[in-house]
Structures are given as structure tokens and as C-alpha cells.
């Protein structure tokens, strides 16, 4: 499907003075796409040139359209010497490639130079004409929609959620090429910017291909990151969730128009895995060949090569089967039946289930109601690798294998929790010199298989009308067998339905489900930790790090648990643990939103026990601390309005017998298998959580617990999408980024001092935010996202991005509104039997000893024939550690009866309202672009805009910028430099969104902010990577006006969801 790209350069404004003599500029523009370049005429002597060029036309492959950015360079013409570059604009034309997104890119773009920053603006118009061409061997994936949003986008409905897609490309980092010694910093920066842009395009195209292959039409929860590995290369990797989405306005569920080369694909039915423990296969697995029908690296001339993690370490287990491998038993059989019947229904086209995903992972954090059946708890895995030992650094295989290993581990943890899927899944890295920590985490869950396959949805919809289900609280109930619990937990009967078992605490990485019953409000809970580490080289370093990691995880977990109890809450959502590696220390930062789930038991308090009871003054001290803690808990309960109804023991029933001795976890390090550490991560004591103060360290811990200051009154904060307990949002929002770097004095480098410094840094940062945003009170900081990095020996950098949203304190909770939303998302509900199935399954499925995988894995690692011994030694296997993580992984979820009310009727009205708003909006969206004054573009890390309705998604925004200076002092020092740069990045994002015709970016995220300085040389450099979804929104107040008009043009404007044009 080739296409024609058309570009017109209209005008420039506010250009810098390039000719000192005349104080003017003779500007012209080069427009480059691929290898073709066009030039405009020189517009003499003006800072506001009017080029009004002809249409420059590029005839290109759609493959290039997806990969290449449009590059616009503004230059100053010089008769005698070389022309001076003023700056560049890179335009990602991807949004023009799908039918439902933008049709034209037109507007003022800041002209950006990596040394000088923004230098004026240029007005550009870009259009694309695509020609249909049904080439089955095509390499492009035009038409697949990408969303950063980690839930089903607001104006779509999920027909099928296919599952995990990932891709990784590697290239040499231009900054480390030999040529970098002789070229200017500007040339080097531009080479890097362009390369990353190219690699992102390529990555996105390849992911798109995988999606088409799975017969999906969209990627939701798309997260792309780059790893600056230094000498060994530059990696761009992405994960996402493939879906088939359907535009809400279209009446029927659409299946993707047949455009994928699926005929080539072998049908791989559910694999009856012969081996329940899947760890035996290494990278050399014979199953390797079960990959895609095309090898993407085939026809690429570019250096970067592609990856396929399909070096599958594992036989494919049916995701849709909702089972944990073989143990699936009856449940699986049932599912098979279902799918088979669906299959027959569809006239026996077996190709539709071409391929089951090997990793049942979902990057989504919020789900259509009914999707999530049970939540098992957090699963995570980390692995320490050495970058300088990659055999073939230019090829992605090694990294693919690394990630595959980690994913495999995650999968097995989930299985250990009796879950067949992982939701809220994310991956990250931390690199310091040649050491790299790879991390992955998610929430083990049992999902409703109906969403994972097609053909059943229609019937589900019908079912929904028939069945009037009572509220299931299934999703807070444990998915694993209570007698064979994978880790010690205190189980009670659900406080909501009193039928099923729930754990005492639940940790998850997902957002609070919309129908969960929460008592009171939530709050941001952070655990912060530093550990010193000796400077070391290579293996010694990696070993030291892997030895530290389990202790860090343990302490982070303990801190989280303590703080949660101190708040009087019993569940964590949106948990994100970041471990950062530096030259001489490791930092751990965990953020989550604590809530009180009505279905879980009331948390016990915290009890302090002294070790030396005969010391009188000590005793007194201890009791004093105890009192302080009790006071704090009481105060917090009041602050967060936690007052659960009293329930007498009898109603709950007899306590469940404590799990037996296997609550002790066996944990071991793969390096030192002789040394077996026994850690008990269980904090499941019934009444209180006992803290023993036996040394100063413990004292510190208790003190640090009490030093966390609650936000000033009128402020709330959380790191999830919305604040549990607040839903009367008003429309004012303020997204911000704050960066702090502190320098540690090298004298006080002890763990305690370090911890205190880090703690103060975070607390002060939060205090500053509250102070700065005080004019918005009452307000809530949502989606608070902390990132820690260690740019140098004694520097700690913390970057925070969040959004402050005002809410109306007086207005009564708008329950109706939220219910409409709930009902909207609710595509189907499950029936009781299904909900309970996994529970029953688990009881016979889990093997008698809870942690075979860990052991097996160790064995397999050591005996693994696929990896040469030498290499194995270098890549310190940290994998077994993850098993412990699964222990502090807690669970369950709660569904309240009350929420089920009032859905279907409201659904109808809402669905009716949506198309016309869309239709009408087209007309009204035009004026703001034409207007000369700058239109407001909102930015938010959330997937929605309070008080407004998103009517259209215009495409993904994914931008990467480098800024460098050699005059740091003159630009106001490091703060001045970075402040200006961040402001410029925002400006460029806004300009791109505005040019697409949008007025907001949702799911905005600053994925990277790498800052390096050299004050002695008066230099600094910073790299920033941001992404988000460009959208058009309409205020709800305006919407009412619109919807009162007769809906005339609604059908034309709303393209059917599955209609993928290629």
C-alpha cells in the first residue's frame, strides 16, 4: 500500500536573527522524507517569512511512511559560506495513516535546535493519500491504532482482547560511534534524535504486524522505552496489549476486515502442555520455530534488526483457556468447548484462533467490568545482566532472551498464585555502566475468557440482558487453594458476601476497579530505601547487586506494609517498585495508592516490642512510641474517613485455620546455593503487626514511619488514575513535571544517612508540590509518578509527573455519573459458576509443595545446555529471587453488591449520545486551528479529562528530544537549563497535538528524563522521552447543547471500529 505524502510550507514567525549586520534572516526550508529532499525559495530579510510553497510530493511505501519521520529543516541562506541551520521539526505522520484519526496535520510547530532550544515557529500542512494494495507479503501495518491509555479508550468497546505484544530493536548509539569524535555535538544529537525516531517507527510497525496477525486492530496500553546501554547499543523496546476495538457508535460488533496474511499461519490450538513446569526449556528450545510467518529482519537494509521473543522459552499455554497450564483441568475443558462452539458458529474458519499468546500478559490497568475475575497479587521478577558481555550487541537476540526469561518467571509466579494471567504488566530497566537490572511486574489475575476470544461477545450481550446477576465479589476472593497457599496469608471470609475467602491485605499494580467498594478515601503510600554498595567491576558488581536485591525488596515490602497499617488501610493499588542502580548504591522506591476495601478485614494495628524488657527507661520509650503509633493510626482513620461498619465475629464465621508450616518460604540465590536464606515475608498475624525494636536500625524504621507527613488539608494524592472516594471532579486540571537533584556530601555516606536524605528529598518534593498548587485546593494529585535515577556518584535525581485536579467539596457525590461510566464499560458480566471455577480448580491443581518452580528453575539454570557456561557466569541469574516476590504478593479484590444497580437503561442513552457529539464536533473543531491565537492544549497522565468527553482519538504522540548546552551558567545553571527544556518539550507536544486538530493529550507520560552535567566545562545534556494520546474532547456542558440538536450526520462520521484500511 504505497502512498503519497504531501507537504506545504506556509510561513515562519519569530525566527532568530541570523545576520547580525541587518538584524534579519534569509530563511529557507528543506523538507526531507526518506532520501528525498525538497527546498523552498529563500525568503530574504525577514523574521516572519511567508514561503507559501507549492505542495511537495513524496511517493513512498507505507513501510517508510510508518518508519520515517518527516524532517523539516529551517536554514539561513548565506551566499558565501555554508548555510546556517536554524532548527528542525520532526513530524510523525503515523496519525495520518489510520482512517479514524487525523486527516491533516496543519499548524505552527516550534523550530527546535538541540543547542539553542526553540527558535521561532513554522507553519506546515501535511497530508497523506494512501492507495489500497492487498499485498499479502506486506511489511507495513498501517491502520493499526495505538493507544498509550492503559484501559479501553473511552469511545471504543473491546470486542476481543487478544493479549501481549512486544518488540525490541537494537542499534548502535550514534553517541558512541567513532565519528562522534569529529562531528559537532549538534550533528551527534540530531543523529540520535533521528535514529530513535526511526527505530520507534519501525518498532511500532512491527508491533502492528503482530497485531494484524492476531487479527486485532489496535494496541492498547502501548509503552515504549529506550535503554541507553552505552557502548553496547541503543535499545528501543515496546510492550502493549493487542485488542480488537469497536467504535462505540457503530451498531454491530465488527470483525477486522481481512487484511492480515493469516492464511499463512498455522493454527496452533491450545497446547496441551505435556510438562506442567515449563522452565525446562531455554533459548534453545525446539519450539523456537513456532514464530511468525514472516521473519521481519528479512528485507531491511537498516542496521537495526528486529527481535522476536518467540525464542519461546515455553510451550504455549492457552491464554484463553484461563488455566494455569495443565492444571486447568475441567475449567479448561469448559473453555475449550466454548471456543470450539464459537468456532463452529463462525462457519468453521479455524484460522481465527491462529495463535495463542505465550505470555498471557496485559498492559492494561483498568478493565471492562466482568473482565477481571480474581486478583491474586503482585508478581515481579528482576534480573541483573552485564551489558559488555553481549555476544552480538547489534542483534536483539540476547536482550530478547533476557526478557523472555523474565516474562517466563512472571508467568510461573502467576501460576503459583493460581492465576492464568498477569494484568497491569510493565517492564523497566536500570542501567549503570555495564550493569543492567531488568525488572518486570504485574498483578496475577484470573480473567473472564469471554473477552479473550471472539464470537462470544454477541451472545454475551444478550446474556447480559437476560441475567440479572447479583453482585459477585469474586474478584476479591483468592484464586489459589487455601490449603496450599503459595505464601502465608491470613484468610477470612469475604466481608462482603461472606461466602468466599479473602486475604487480609491485597497488593496490586492495577487501578482500583470501578465497581470496588471502598471505605473512605485513599492516599499515596511510598516506601523509600537506599543501600550502599561497594564499587566493583563486572561480575563482582553484578553479584553484589543481586545479593542486595532480595533484602531491598524485603525492606520495601515491610515499609509498605507498615505504612499501609499506619494508614489503617488494607489494600494497595497501582503499586510500582523501582530499583535503581548507581555506582555505589542501590535505590528502591515503591509508590502505591492505599485504600480500605470493604471486602477485606480491618487491618490490625502495629505493635512495638522491645528486646530488653528489664530496662525501665527503655520500656517507657517503647510504650511512648507505641502510643504515638496508635495515635497516628487513629488520626489517619479520621483523616481518610475510614469507618467500616462493625461486624461481629460470628457473622464472619469461624476463623480459618492457619496454614501450616509451609508458610515459610524457601529462598535462595542462584550463585550461592549453599547459603540458604530463610525469610518470612508473612505479616499475616491476626491482631497486630509486631515490630521489634532490637537495634538502632529498627528505631530508625519506626521513626521514619512517623515522619511521613500527611498532605495539608484540602489535598489528597494517589498514584492511580483517580482517587478512591472522590468522584465529584471539577474541570480544572494542572499537569506538571518536577525534577530535583541532590548532591550527597561524601562524608555522611552511611545507609541511615542515605535513607534519611532520600526520604527528605521525596517528602520535601511532595511538600513543595502541595505548596505550589495551594491555589487549587480542594484538589487531588492523581497519577503521581516518581522516577529515581542516579546520574553520578553522589547525585540522586527524582522526577515527578502528576496532575492536580480540583474537586467540589460540597457537591454530593455524583453517583449517577459514575454509574453511567461503569455501565458503559460493562460489556458483559460473568455468571457465578464461572467466577468460582478457578477456586475449585486450584484446589486440585496446585502441587503439594508450593514452590516447585523456584527449585526447578535453579536446576534448569545450572544445567541449561543452551547457554555456554561462560556466558552464564556473566549474566548473574537473579531470577529465583522473583519467587520470593510472589510471596509478598497479596491479593484479591472486591466487588460490591450496591454497584450493580442501574446499568442497562443508562447505557442505552449514553451510547445514543456519543455518535452525534462526534459528528458535530467536526464542525466545531475547525475554528481553533484557524484562529491566530494559541489554542489551549490540556495535558494529563490520566485517560480522561474531568468534566469532558473525549470524542476522538487522533493518534499516538511519541517524542524524543535531546538538548545540550555549552553555556550552562549563561542559561541559568542546571535548573535554568532544565526548566527551559521541560517547558519546550511541553510546548512541542502541545503544538503537535494542536496541529492534529486536538485539544488535549491523555495518558501523557514522561518516560525518560536523563540529565547529565559537567559544570566544570559549563556543559549539560538532557534527553527526554514523552508519549501520550492526542484527543479531541468536548466539555460536558457543551455536549448537552450539541446533543439537543437532531442527530443528522452521525453515521457518516463514525467509522466502524473494525474497519482497518490498508
Amino acid at each position, binding site marked *: 500500500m504505497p502512498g503519497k505524502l504531501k507537504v506545504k510550507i506556509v510561513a515562519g514567525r519569530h525566527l532568530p536573527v541570523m545576520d547580525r549586520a541587518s538584524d534579519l534572516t534569509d530563511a529557507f526550508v528543506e523538507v526531507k522524507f526518506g532520501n528525498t529532499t525538497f527546498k523552498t525559495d529563500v525568503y530574504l530579510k525577514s523574521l516572519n517569512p511567508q514561503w507559501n510553497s507549492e505542495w511537495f510530493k513524496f511517493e513512498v511505501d507505507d513501510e517508510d511512511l510508518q518508519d520515517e519521520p518527516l524532517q523539516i529543516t529551517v536554514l539561513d541562506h548565506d551566499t558565501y559560506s555554508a548555510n546556517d541551520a536554524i532548527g528542525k521539526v520532526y513530524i510523525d505522520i503515523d496519525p495520518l495513516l489510520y482512517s479514524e484519526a487525523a486527516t491533516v496535520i496543519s499548524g505552527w510547530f516550534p523550530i527546535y535546535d538541540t543547542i539553542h532550544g*526553540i527558535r521561532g*515557529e513554522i507553519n506546515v500542512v501535511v497530508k497523506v493519500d494512501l492507495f489500497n494494495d492487498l499485498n499479502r507479503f506486506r511489511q507495513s501495518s498501517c491502520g493499526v491504532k495505538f493507544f498509550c491509555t492503559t484501559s479501553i479508550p473511552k469511545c471504543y468497546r473491546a470486542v476481543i482482547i487478544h493479549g501481549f505484544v512486544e518488540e525490541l530493536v537494537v542499534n548502535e548509539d550514534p553517541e558512541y560511534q567513532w565519528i562522534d569524535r569529529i562531528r559537532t555535538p549538534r550533528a551527534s544529537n540530531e543523529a540520535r534524535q533521528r535514529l530513535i525516531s526511526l527505530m520507534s517507527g519501525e518498532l511500532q510497525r512491527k508491533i502492528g504486524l503482530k497485531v494484524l496477525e492476531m487479527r486485532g486492530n489496535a494496541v492498547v496500553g502501548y509503552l515504549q522505552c529506550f535503554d541507553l546501554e552505552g557502548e553496547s547499543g541503543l535499545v528501543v523496546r515496546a510492550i502493549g496489549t493487542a485488542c480488537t476495538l469497536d467504535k462505540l457508535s457503530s451498531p454491530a460488533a465488527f470483525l477486522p476486515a481481512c487484511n492480515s496474511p493469516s492464511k499463512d499461519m498455522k493454527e496452533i490450538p491450545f497446547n496441551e502442555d505435556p510438562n506442567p513446569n515449563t522452565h525446562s526449556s531455554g533459548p534453545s528450545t525446539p519450539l523456537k520455530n513456532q514464530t511468525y510467518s514472516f521473519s521481519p529482519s528479512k528485507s531491511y537494509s537498516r542496521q537495526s534488526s528486529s527481535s522476536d521473543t518467540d525464542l519461546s522459552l515455553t510451550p504455549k499455554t492457552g491464554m484463553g483457556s484461563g488455566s494455569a497450564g495443565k492444571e486447568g483441568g475441567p475449567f479448561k475443558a469448559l473453555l475449550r468447548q466454548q471456543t470450539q462452539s464459537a468456532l463452529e458458529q463462525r462457519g468453521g474458519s479455524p484460522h481465527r484462533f491462529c495463535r495463542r499468546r505465550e505470555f498471557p500478559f496485559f498492559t492494561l490497568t483498568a478493565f471492562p467490568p466482568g473482565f477481571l475475575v480474581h486478583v491474586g497479587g503482585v508478581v515481579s521478577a528482576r534480573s541483573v545482566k552485564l551489558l559488555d558481555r553481549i555476544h552480538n550487541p547489534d542483534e536483539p537476540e540476547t536482550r530478547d532472551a533476557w526478557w523472555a526469561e523474565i516474562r517466563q518467571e512472571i508467568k510461573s509466579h502467576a501460576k503459583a498464585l493460581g492465576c492464568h494471567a498477569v494484568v497491569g504488566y510493565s517492564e523497566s530497566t536500570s542501567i549503570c555502566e555495564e550493569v543492567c537490572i531488568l525488572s518486570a511486574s504485574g498483578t496475577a489475575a484470573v480473567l473472564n475468557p469471554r473477552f479473550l476470544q471472539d464470537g462470544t461477545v454477541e451472545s454475551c450481550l444478550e446474556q447480559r440482558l437476560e441475567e440479572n446477576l447479583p453482585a459477585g465479589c469474586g474478584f476479591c476472593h483468592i484464586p489459589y487453594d487455601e490449603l496450599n497457599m503459595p505464601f502465608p496469608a491470613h484468610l477470612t471470609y469475604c466481608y462482603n458476601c461472606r461466602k468466599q475467602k479473602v486475604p487480609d491485605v491485597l497488593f496490586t499494580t492495577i487501578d482500583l476497579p470501578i465497581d470496588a467498594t471502598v471505605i473512605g478515601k485513599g492516599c499515596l503510600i511510598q516506601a523509600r530505601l537506599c543501600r550502599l554498595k561497594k564499587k566493583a567491576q563486572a561480575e563482582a558488581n553484578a553479584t553484589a547487586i543481586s545479593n542486595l536485591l532480595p533484602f531491598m525488596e524485603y525492606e520495601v515490602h515491610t515499609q509498605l506494609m507498615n505504612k499501609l497499617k499506619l494508614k489503617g488501610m488494607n489494600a494497595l493499588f497501582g503499586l510500582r517498585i523501582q530499583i535503581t542502580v548507581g555506582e555505589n548504591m542501590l535505590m528502591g522506591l515503591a509508590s502505591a495508592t492505599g485504600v480500605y476495601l470493604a471486602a477485606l478485614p480491618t487491618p490490625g494495628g502495629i505493635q512495638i516490642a522491645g528486646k530488653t524488657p528489664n530496662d525501665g527507661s527503655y520500656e517507657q520509650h517503647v510504650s511512648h512510641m507505641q502510643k504515638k503509633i496508635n495515635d497516628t493510626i487513629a488520626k489517619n482513620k479520621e483523616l481518610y474517613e475510614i469507618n467500616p461498619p462493625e461486624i461481629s465475629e460470628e457473622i464472619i464465621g469461624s476463623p480459618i485455620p492457619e496454614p501450616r508450616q509451609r508458610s515459610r518460604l524457601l529462598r535462595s540465590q542462584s550463585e550461592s546455593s549453599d547459603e540458604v536464606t530463610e525469610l518470612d515475608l508473612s505479616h499475616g498475624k491476626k491482631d497486630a503487626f509486631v515490630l521489634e525494636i532490637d537495634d538502632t536500625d529498627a528505631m530508625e524504621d519506626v521513626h521514619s514511619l512517623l515522619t511521613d507527613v500527611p498532605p495539608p488539608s484540602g489535598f489528597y494524592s494517589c498514584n492511580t488514575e483517580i482517587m478512591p472516594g472522590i468522584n465529584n471532579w471539577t474541570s480544572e486540571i494542572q*499537569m506538571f513535571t518536577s525534577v530535583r537533584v*541532590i548532591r550527597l556530601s561524601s562524608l555522611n555516606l552511611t545507609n541511615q544517612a542515605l535513607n534519611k536524605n532520600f526520604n527528605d528529598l521525596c517528602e520535601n518534593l511532595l511538600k513543595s508540590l502541595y505548596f505550589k498548587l495551594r491555589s487549587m485546593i480542594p484538589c487531588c494529585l492523581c497519577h503521581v509518578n516518581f522516577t529515581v535515577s542516579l546520574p553520578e556518584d553522589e547525585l540522586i535525581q527524582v522526577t515527578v509527573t502528576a496532575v492536580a485536579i480540583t474537586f467540589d467539596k460540597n457537591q454530593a457525590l455524583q453517583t449517577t455519573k459514575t454509574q453511567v461510566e461503569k455501565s458503559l464499560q460493562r460489556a458483559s458480566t460473568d455468571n457465578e459458576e464461572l467466577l468460582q471455577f478457578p477456586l475449585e480448580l486450584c484446589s486440585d491443581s496446585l502441587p503439594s509443595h508450593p514452590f516447585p518452580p523456584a527449585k526447578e528453575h535453579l536446576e534448569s539454570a545450572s544445567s541449561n545446555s543452551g547457554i555456554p557456561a561462560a556466558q552464564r557466569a556473566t549474566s548473574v541469574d537473579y531470577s529465583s529471587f522473583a519467587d520470593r516476590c510472589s510471596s509478598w504478593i497479596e491479593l484479591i479484590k472486591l466487588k460490591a453488591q450496591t454497584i450493580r444497580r442501574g446499568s442497562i437503561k443508562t447505557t442505552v442513552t449514553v451510547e445514543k449520545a456519543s455518535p452525534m457529539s462526534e459528528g458535530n464536533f467536526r464542525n466545531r473543531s475547525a475554528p481553533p486551528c484557524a484562529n491566530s*491565537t*494559541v489554542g489551549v492544549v490540556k495535558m494529563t497522565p490520566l485517560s480522561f479529562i474531568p468534566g469532558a468527553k473525549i470524542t476522538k482519538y487522533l493518534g499516538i504522540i511519541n517524542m524524543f528530544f535531546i538538548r545540550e548546552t555549552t553555556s550552562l551558567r549563561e542559561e*541559568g545553571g542546571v535548573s535554568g537549563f532544565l526548566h527551559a527544556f521541560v517547558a*519546550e518539550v*511541553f510546548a512541542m507536544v502541545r503544538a503537535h497535538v494542536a496541529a492534529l486538530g486536538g485539544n488535549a493529550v491523555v495518558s501523557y507520560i514522561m518516560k525518560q528524563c536523563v540529565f547529565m552535567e559537567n559544570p566544570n566545562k559549563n556543559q549539560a545534556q538532557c534527553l527526554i522521552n514523552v508519549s501520550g494520546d492526542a484527543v479531541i474532547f468536548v466539555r460536558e456542558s457543551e455536549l448537552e447543547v450539541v446533543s439537543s440538536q437532531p442527530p443528522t450526520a452521525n453515521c457518516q462520521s463514525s467509522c466502524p471500529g473494525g474497519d482497518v484500511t490498508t
Partner: protein
Amino acid sequence: MTNELDIFVGNTTLIDEDVYRLWLDGYSVNDAVALRVRSGILEQTGATAAVLQSDTMDHYRTFHMLERLLHAPPKLLHQLIFQIPPSRQALLIERYYAFDEAFVREVLGKKLSKGTKKDLDDISTKTGITLKSCRRQFDNFKRVFKVVEEMRGSLVDNIQQHFLLSDRLARDYAAIVFFANNRFETGKKKLQYLSFGDFAFCAELMIQNWTLGAVDSQVDDMDVDLDKEFLQDLKELKVLVADKDLLDLHKSLVCTALRGKLGVFSEMEANFKNLSRGLVNVAAKLTHNKDVRDLFVDLVEKFVEPCRSDHWALNDVRLFLNQYSASVHSLDGFRHQALWDRYMGTLRGCLLRLYHD
């Protein structure tokens, strides 16, 4: 532990009005923090001094970055870097171009040159306004002056268009530009009692009636330069005092009309010839640039001070001036009625404004 780097950037640029004022007033970050602490903000918000310091630094950096744009306000409207709601933009501009009364009195009518800029130290010491703030205000005057100096069209409109100021402020700037261009002396000791408002009032009247723009709205510099031809013609008024008959007749007309109405009639009668000579001579001297500059000194010396020493009430001055200008129409031998009106109309307004303690 020191903060090496500390920034906060909002999608909508945060503007704290109080900090903006401190910044405009030229306080250093530390002074501004100290002043904020004194305002009791810590108690109100429960913040710490460190938080305040960080917040102040952030705002100062933002203002510093905005300053470049504030130099050409239309740029602020069209720039893409800072997303600022229009009402806030207006506030930023208006406050940036606002000036201190004490400062403007010091430089009003002076050449806006490097020389004057060097004297800003002294002005700062004298007025207690920080040097930084003095510089900003001075540079504002100079910038506005440079832009509108040679532009055609109404001075106030030009200023408003290029600097997006409120009507009020644009008028003030018009006065400043007008004074700077004509270099009216305003610094003499005897003029110290006059406020900027007094001068601005006079400037507006003069711009309306005495400039080129008053006759022809299509010339360059129309509102900035005085109408040279008009100034030349003013010599013709000399006949009013040179011709003894005319002067006597004028006096008798005025005295007849005002008898019994004026509290200071006898003083007026005794002083009439002096006053009239003063006023007419001021007019006749305006052909020389030097004398134009001394216009206000002359007016005060020749009219305001004599009247004040005789304790004229303001109403007496009004009655006198009205009668004084009107009576000329009855002087048959005087042919320059229109010229007289153009001169005296403005002068009467000015004198009334200038006549106070």
C-alpha cells in the same frame, strides 16, 4: 544534602502574583523569601522556609524566561512555550509595564539615553526603589519610546497595539514618550510639588492640541513632536502685551467681568499686566527648543507662583483664566483668535492642573 537542581514546570504556567510583584520590585531571591516569610505565608500554609525558597526560585526563573517575551508583548500572545490563560497574560504585561511614581518623576522629560541610565544608581538611592526595578522601568520607557517614536497614527493607539497595555497605562506611556521627546524640564526644585499625574494631564492636552496630529492625522511623528508652525505663529500673540492699548483694554474687560466675583480681585487687578505678560511671553518664546523645555518652569514661575503668593483660590484662578482667554475675543484689533484659542485652551487646562500646593 544540597539541592543541585530543583524545577517545577506546569502545563499551564503557574504565576504567583505576590512573587511577581517582588520580582518586579527587583528583590533578590533571598530578599523575596525573607519578605514572604514576613507576610506570614508559612503559618498560613504550614510550609517550610526551604519550600518557600524553592518556590520563589522557580517563579523567578519563570519570570526571567518570560521577560524576553514581555519586551514585545504580542510575542507573549503567540509564543508556544508557556501556556498562560489570556487574563494572566494581560496581568503579566500590565504589571511589567507599570512604574513607580517616584521613579517616573525622576526621569520624566530626560533623554532616555545611556547617560541617564548611568544615573539610575542615584535615582535608586534617592527613591529607595531597587536598581533592578529602576532599570526595568527605564528600559520599558526607552523600549516603548523607540518603537512608537517614528510611527504614524495616534500615540496612545500605537502604544496599545504594540504593547497591549490598558488604556490608562497606554496614556501614561504616551505622556512619558511625549515628555522624553520634547525634553520638558520637570526636575527643577520649584516643580517638585507636581506629580506625574499633573504632567501626564498636561501632556495629553498638548498632544491633542499642539502637535502635528492635532491638524493632520496622516503625518509621521504626529503625536510626538509639537507643531513647529504653530509654535512659530505664537510669536504673533506678543501684540497682546506689546500693544499698550490692547493690554489695557484686555485688562479692563477682564476686570469688569470679574469685579465682585473674585476673592482676590484687587491682587488680580494689580498683577494683571504681569500675569498676562508672563503667559504671552511663554508663548512667544516657544520657538526656541530651550524655552520649550522650560515650559513648565516658566508657567510655574510666571503664573503659578505669583498667584500662590497672593493666595488665590483655585476657583479664582479658574474664573480668571476663563475670563482672560474669553475676553480676547472682544479685542477688535486682535486678529489671531484661532491661534489664541489653540494656545490658551490647552494652557488654561494645564495651569488649572498645575495650580495646587
